[in-house]
């Protein structure tokens, strides 16, 4: 983040007058609601507020006890307070929220007499070159990534297929060549042989045979070319999808979370398709069409430049017209696409929530909601098609107008015996060849842009650096299970910390219970220990090694996780249990299921371990799913076990069974457990109570009860609740 901006000369001089050294200088842009241009400057002892280069406030930093970064709705403020005073210093738009979060921290550490470590780097959410913002969570500027680079990238994709692509290009050219020969044969036939004087029937047959042969060759080459292209297309698609999918899997969870599943699916399927289509169709067809256009135009001009002009006259108009219509078509299809997108997501939404719909008897309402959008979609589509099908036939007609002139002009030349009938026929046939490429060319810019955009989007993923970097080499070193959390601060958005300065030490085999209201940051803590996210400040050490220096595979292979919402993949129970260790023996699998108290219910199913579960298979209850998840976690024999509300969604009896399973599971493992029912954490070695991101209590169950603090309150509240229930 940039905390040291270049200040205007006047401001800099003003501060130098005080003999102060500038630590931070950052712009701000609001005065409560009014837009302003200002700078907020921090030195060792003072802060300065400049509004339009004018000093409006200068204060000793220590005048206030605390500086607050206040996140309001749509903007933020920097406030300061001491025992008597509270004051609003400046306001800023969302662009600067992160910055002033850091500034507040810096000011507070100056108040506490720490010398703050200020890191101002230019890495920003805006491209340093053009100032345009990066796509969220990405570091690649869409704008500055110039076309050349994109071409290069497109080329890297194409490179492995150059040979077949050239081959198909060659085949297409042969087709074009043949297409150019046929009209000449027609001319020779008409001019030289289809005359009353001519008696040479064999020659006629020969020429007709030639024409037939051309036509046959044309067909055969076409078939070969198409088959070739289909093969190339399929393998391009496969390779591209594979690359993109592999990359997405390697990216951090935050990247995936910030995007809708639909968007990612679109990258993997839609964009790769578009690029494939472009490579395998547009490029070679494009080159061919261009070539045809040039050759035919030259041919026409050489044959009879006057007649050629008749054809060429409408061309500029047609191109202009196409250009003009392009915009209209774009918007036509854009709106159609948007509406169909909306209809699809509505459908997805309703179908996934079908239980709720039925439970509330809302079927009719949903039907009418969908039928409304369906109707709009069908109207728009029909409208677009109508327009399209009106415009194009007329356009074709317009393009053909030139040929009427040719017929007239050519006809009159024939009557004057200045032209032979065959020449006219040849000419008309050539002129037909020119319209195809013309129409195609006018559409080319659009499909080209589409392909470039899709390439861009694909490369945006391919070039994305995972935020959580996996730099350490794989060692297969076993983990003992020592966990140390050292002054850790973390927020999903850096300006909004969820955990603040957390400290914790856990020895191998200990069980730590995490307690706190929902939203206190318990799951977040666990996410950090699993290193799904990197901490903002501080360190997490496992066996005295920073987890950033442990290979992720090493780390995760030693962790077992059971979450509240268990996800089982479509497949058999067996496949789900061995998910993380496919080479486990059958004995191990059954043992794991037994420890998880799952074996007996599994054996009651007709297909036992081979029962299919998931969307199409048997429906399992929440508790049953949970026990499979536990078996899955055990099988991995993890050194660190994480249980996040593993029993929250099951009834008490099932919970007892699961608890029993978990009791066996946590033996000799470092365990982090979050439980809704506090009684289940009684056996924990230590409990930590989190509140608003801070550890407020720490100790054993008995210690904390004696203390009569927050934990005591929570336990009592639950007791009350159980009593009233009974």
């Amino acid at each position, binding site marked *: 983040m940039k905390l040291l901006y270049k200040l205007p000369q006047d401001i800099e001089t003003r501060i130098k007058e005080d003999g102060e050294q500038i630590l931070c200088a950052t712009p701000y842009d*609001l005065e*409560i*609601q*009014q*837009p302003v241009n200002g700078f907020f400057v921090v030195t060792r002892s003072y802060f300065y507020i400049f509004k339009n280069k004018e000093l409006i406030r200068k204060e000793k930093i220590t005048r206030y006890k605390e500086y607050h970064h206040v996140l*309001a*709705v*749509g*903007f933020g*403020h920097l406030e300061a307070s001491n025992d*008597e*005073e*509270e*004051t*609003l210093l400046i306001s800023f*738009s*969302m*662009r600067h*929220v992160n910055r002033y979060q850091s500034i507040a921290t810096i000011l507070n550490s100056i108040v506490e007499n720490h010398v703050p470590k200020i890191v101002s780097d230019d890495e920003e*959410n805006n491209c340093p070159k053009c100032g*345009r*913002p*990066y*796509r*969220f969570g990405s570091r690649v500027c*869409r*704008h500055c990534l110039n076309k050349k680079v994109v071409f290069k990238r497109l080329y890297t994709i194409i490179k492995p297929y150059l040979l077949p692509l050239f081959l198909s290009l060659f085949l297409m050219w042969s087709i074009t060549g043949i297409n150019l020969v046929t009209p000449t044969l027609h001319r020779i036939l008409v001019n030289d042989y289809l005359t009353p004087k001519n008696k040479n029937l064999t020659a006629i047959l020969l020429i007709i045979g030639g024409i037939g042969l051309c036509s046959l060759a044309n067909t055969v080459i076409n078939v070969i070319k198409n088959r070739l292209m289909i093969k190339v297309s399929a393998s391009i698609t496969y390779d591209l999808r594979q690359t993109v999918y592999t990359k997405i899997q390697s990216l951090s969870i935050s990247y995936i979370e910030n995007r*809708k599943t639909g*968007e990612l699916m679109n990258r993997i399927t839609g964009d790769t398709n578009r690029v494939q289509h472009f490579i395998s169709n547009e490029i070679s067809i494009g080159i061919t069409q261009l070539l045809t256009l040039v050759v035919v135009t030259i041919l026409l001009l050489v044959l009879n430049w006057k007649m050629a002009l008749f054809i060429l006259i409408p061309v500029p108009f047609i191109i202009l017209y196409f250009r003009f219509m392009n915009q209209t078509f774009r*918007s036509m299809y*854009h*709106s159609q696409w*948007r509406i169909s*997108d*909306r209809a699809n997501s509505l459908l997805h939404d309703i179908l996934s929530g079908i239980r709720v719909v039925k439970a509330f008897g809302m079927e009719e309402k949903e039907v009418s909601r969908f039928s409304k959008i369906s109707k709009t979609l069908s109207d728009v589509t029909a409208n677009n098609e109508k327009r399209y099908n009106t415009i194009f036939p007329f356009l074709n007609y317009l393009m053909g107008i030139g040929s009427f002139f040719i017929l007239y002009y050519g006809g009159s030349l024939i009557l004057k015996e200045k032209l032979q009938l065959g020449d006219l026929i040849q000419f008309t046939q050539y002129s037909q060849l020119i319209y195809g490429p013309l129409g195609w060319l006018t559409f080319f810019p659009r499909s080209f842009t589409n392909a470039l*955009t899709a390439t*861009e*989007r694909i490369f945006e993923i391919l070039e994305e650096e995972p935020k959580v970097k996996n730099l350490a080499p794989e060692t297969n070193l076993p983990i003992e299970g020592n966990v140390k959390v050292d002054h850790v601060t973390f927020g999903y958005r850096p300006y909004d910390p969820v955990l603040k300065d957390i400290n914790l030490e856990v020895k191998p085999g200990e069980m730590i219970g995490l307690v706190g209201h929902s939203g206190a940051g318990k799951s977040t803590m666990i996410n950090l220990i699993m290193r799904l996210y990197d901490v903002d400040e501080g360190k997490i050490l496992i066996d005295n090694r920073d987890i950033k220096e442990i290979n992720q595979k090493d780390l995760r292979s030693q962790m077992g996780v059971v979450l509240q919402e268990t996800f089982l993949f479509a497949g058999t129970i067996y496949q789900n249990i061995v998910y993380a260790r496919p080479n486990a023996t059958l004995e191990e699998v059954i043992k794991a299921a037994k420890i998880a108290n799952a074996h007996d219910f599994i054996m009651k199913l007709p297909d036992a371990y081979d029962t299919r579960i998931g969307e199409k298979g048997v429906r399992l209850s929440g508790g049953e799913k949970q026990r499979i998840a536990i078996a899955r976690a055990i099988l991995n024999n993890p050194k660190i076990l994480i249980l996040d509300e593993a029993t929250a969604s099951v009834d008490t009896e099932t919970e007892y069974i699961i608890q029993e399973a978990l009791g066996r599971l946590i033996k000799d493992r470092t365990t982090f457990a979050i439980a809704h029912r506090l009684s289940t954490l009684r056996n924990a070695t230590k409990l930590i109570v989190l509140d608003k991101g801070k550890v407020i209590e720490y100790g054993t169950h008995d210690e904390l009860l004696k203390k009569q603090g927050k934990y005591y309150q929570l336990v009592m509240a639950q007791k009350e609740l159980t009593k009233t229930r009974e």
Partner: protein
Amino acid sequence: MSEITYLKPKNAKFFRNNNGFLGLKFNDVEYSRVNLIKAFPFSYENKFISVRDKEQNEIGIIEDISLFPEEVQKLFTEEIERRYYLPKITKIYSIKDEFGYSNWEVETNYGRRKFTIRRDPNNFVNIKANMILIIDVDGNRYEIPDYTKLDKKSFKKIELLL
């Protein structure tokens, strides 16, 4: 727990504290500074406004701002302006699409603005009839209060997005 505590002019005295922020005296308790949080910031701007203390605990709810005398309403407005910032778009000069983004240039009630939004339905939301909320890449938000009331040229530019 489920009862709503209503703050009425009779039982709740709002004042401006020494530091210029909004304070409240309610049932003999004095809160030197309170925050106002709208329950329905888009659909009912002036109704059901939660009054919270420094720790964000709810003291009570103002059912409707207009129940209070004008001086107090002015205090409310001040406090609300510190919490809610949502420029209203009055005119659209241009929208240019490029690579999954669109660059907007608009006139707002706070002057001319340029911003970029990512092409994603979540950043262009139809919150209630005719009202559009736009969220740019930095997280700034803009509102088109009623798109049917935009001038023709501006409307044409967003028509496609609707």
